[in-house]
């Protein structure tokens, strides 16, 4: 153990002698913390959409000869995007082409007339026009999604209005009331009142006429009852399928906590894997390994020292990052004990993986490249949620990511940060097993190190 102490001191001296490396180790987590902090504290900005409303003012949607109340479609759309009002189509096109706006939404002058034609014998097809500049696939996808979502919202709003009006008319038919048409107020009797009146006059009629009247009364009652059922049906037409979300697995943490956990795990993974793998490979590049292992320190001791170095630096850097995040999102400092446990276990497993990489690659440059080539894709794959890819591919990803400490480290750090999150025991056990396995691989790979 005495040797390990002096080697650790030596590695820290070397780290201090490499100002660029040391600055990167401190600057990198601060940069990540600031970027993630800004991203999660400001929230996504609304996309800018040019909006051209050519529908003449005071044009209202008409159902069965009666105008609907204003649907306020423009206000609803402009709540979800930043509307840039334009005066004509040319201006809309210019703004889309220049990239000033993501897309342009044009409501043509005949839009309301075509909507109104839906309740006639010659229905038209109401259309809105969307101008987009599909300069790249991602942007095109984003615009499609946004516009589809906006129009679905608009359709839903209009359908609900129509449904509500239809329901109101049905209510008049069933229960009676007043109805305005062409400036005149008309009193509607209603089926319920009609049935009551008929039931009242039936005893006064001659017996031979009663059966016919009773049939009419029966029909009024049936119509009333069926129209009562039709009202909720009309309501449901606007949104026939409702969403009932039931969480059956995976205690999902709040998005900002998950983002912080991802940033912390990425930082820890890169710092620890690169540092451990690099410093182990450096022992060979400096030709010091054979000299050290000639009785000064055992190969196992050397590996332990490297993992310790990675854990110590990784712990400091990750804690610094998490404390930096405090400026953006308040974290529960009372759980700092769990943070430490999660970071220590994660650091040890990532350090052991780094040692295995360092022992296998043996050269610092090759090791740095290998560390990036392994860590980055594994980190991305670890973030793929189930359902995003086919079950077979997801299973393959699950098994692959289970072989590297990134995913269990992310789970452990998420659990440490979030009280309502998943348990920490499973990920810690997973990390302990991976630490032992990678340490064994590193120890075996070190045999090749000794070759002179």
């Amino acid at each position, binding site marked *: 153990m005495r040797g390990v102490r*002096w080697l650790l001191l030596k590695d820290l*001296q070397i780290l201090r*002698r490499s100002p660029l490396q040391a600055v990167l180790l401190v600057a990198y987590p601060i940069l990540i913390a600031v970027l993630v902090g800004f991203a999660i504290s400001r929230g996504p900005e609304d996309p800018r959409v040019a909006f051209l409303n050519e529908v003449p003012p005071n044009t209202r949607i008409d159902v069965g000869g009666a105008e609907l109340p204003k649907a306020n479609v423009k206000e609803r759309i402009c709540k979800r995007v930043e509307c840039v009002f334009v005066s004509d189509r040319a201006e809309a096109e210019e703004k889309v082409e220049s990239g000033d706006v993501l897309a342009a939404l044009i409501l043509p002058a005949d839009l309301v007339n075509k909507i109104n034609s839906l309740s006639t014998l010659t229905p038209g097809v109401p259309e809105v026009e969307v101008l987009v500049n599909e300069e790249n696939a991602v942007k095109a996808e984003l615009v499609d999604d946004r516009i589809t979502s906006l129009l679905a919202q608009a359709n839903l709003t209009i359908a609900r209005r129509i449904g509500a009006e239809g329901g109101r008319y049905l209510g008049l038919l069933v229960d009676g009331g007043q109805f305005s048409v062409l400036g005149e107020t008309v009193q509607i009797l209603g089926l319920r009142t009609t049935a009551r009146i008929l039931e009242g006059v039936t005893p006064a009629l001659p017996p031979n006429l009663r059966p016919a009247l009773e049939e009419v009364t029966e029909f009024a009652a049936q119509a009333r009852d069926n129209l009562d059922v039709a009202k909720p049906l009309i309501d449901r037409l606007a949104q026939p399928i409702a969403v009932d979300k039931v969480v059956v697995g995976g205690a999902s943490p709040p998005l900002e906590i998950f983002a912080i956990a991802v940033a912390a795990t990425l930082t820890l993974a890169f710092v620890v894997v690169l540092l451990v793998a690099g410093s182990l490979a450096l022992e060979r590049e400096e030709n010091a390994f*054979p000299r*050290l292992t*000639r009785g000064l320190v055992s190969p196992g001791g050397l590996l332990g020292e490297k993992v310790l170095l990675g854990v110590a630096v990784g712990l400091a850097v990750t804690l610094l990052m998490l404390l930096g995040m405090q400026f953006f999102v308040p974290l529960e400092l009372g759980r700092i004990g769990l943070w430490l446990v999660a970071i220590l276990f994660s650091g040890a497993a990532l350090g052991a993986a780094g040692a295995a990489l360092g022992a296998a690659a043996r050269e610092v440059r090759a090791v740095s490249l290998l560390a990036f080539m392994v860590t980055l894709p594994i980190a991305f794959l670890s973030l793929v949620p189930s359902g995003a890819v086919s079950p077979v591919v997801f299973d393959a990803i699950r098994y692959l990511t289970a072989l590297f400490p990134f995913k269990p480290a992310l789970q452990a750090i998420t659990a440490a940060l979030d009280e309502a999150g998943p348990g920490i025991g499973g990920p810690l056990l997973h990390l302990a097993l991976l630490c032992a396995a990678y340490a064994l691989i590193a120890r075996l790979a070190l045999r090749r190190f000794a070759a*002179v």
Partner: protein
Amino acid sequence: MEATGVVKRFGSREALRGVSFKADPGEQVAVIGPNGAGKTTLLSILAGISKPDEGKVGAANGEIGWVPQQAALYRRLTVEENLLLFARLEGHEDPRGSVEEMLELTGLRDRRGEIVARLSGGNQQRINIAIGLLSRPAVLLLDEPSVGLDPRQRSRLWEFVSALADRGTTVIFSTHDIQEAERYGGRLLVLADGEALFDGPPDELREAVRREAPEAADRDFETAFVAYLHHRGH
């Protein structure tokens, strides 16, 4: 230091074929031979870095100091930090005292605070040797210590090594340079294809060359040596 019947195989290839030799205290033994003769393999086995497949190696008493061909030290640390690290790893009771002693021995006291990477190859090699001496070894093994050094640096190096031998340290070194081996090696061990062809003082090797390759006897020692190897089938 004694080696008896040392055999080392790498797969089907025999790098050393039953090499035996002995070196006494204060002796300077040069291990010479062409590339692939087994010089570095023999030294690494003597140093305990790799194990022989057959045969025995042992030193009568004391530590074995090993100085690899390429300087085994940390180039981003200073001269003093390197020496202090290895003195501590050796478990010296007074590591700083040992560092002062080595700085005196190597003549690098004035450059103790310099980063090793900025030193010349010769000075790096002196620190490399000094680290090998920190264990106060009875036997010092040097693997091609003068490679890459200019003549002045080489001269200072051998002056330094000879002084160690004068104080009783057994020095075993490998080299490609026949003149260097003849000049600084009290005894020569000639290896070719893993086989020990000759073990004796330089004068006896000249005699053997004269006997086995008489056509090259009057030429320079290196040419005569090559002719000798050729006559021995290498």
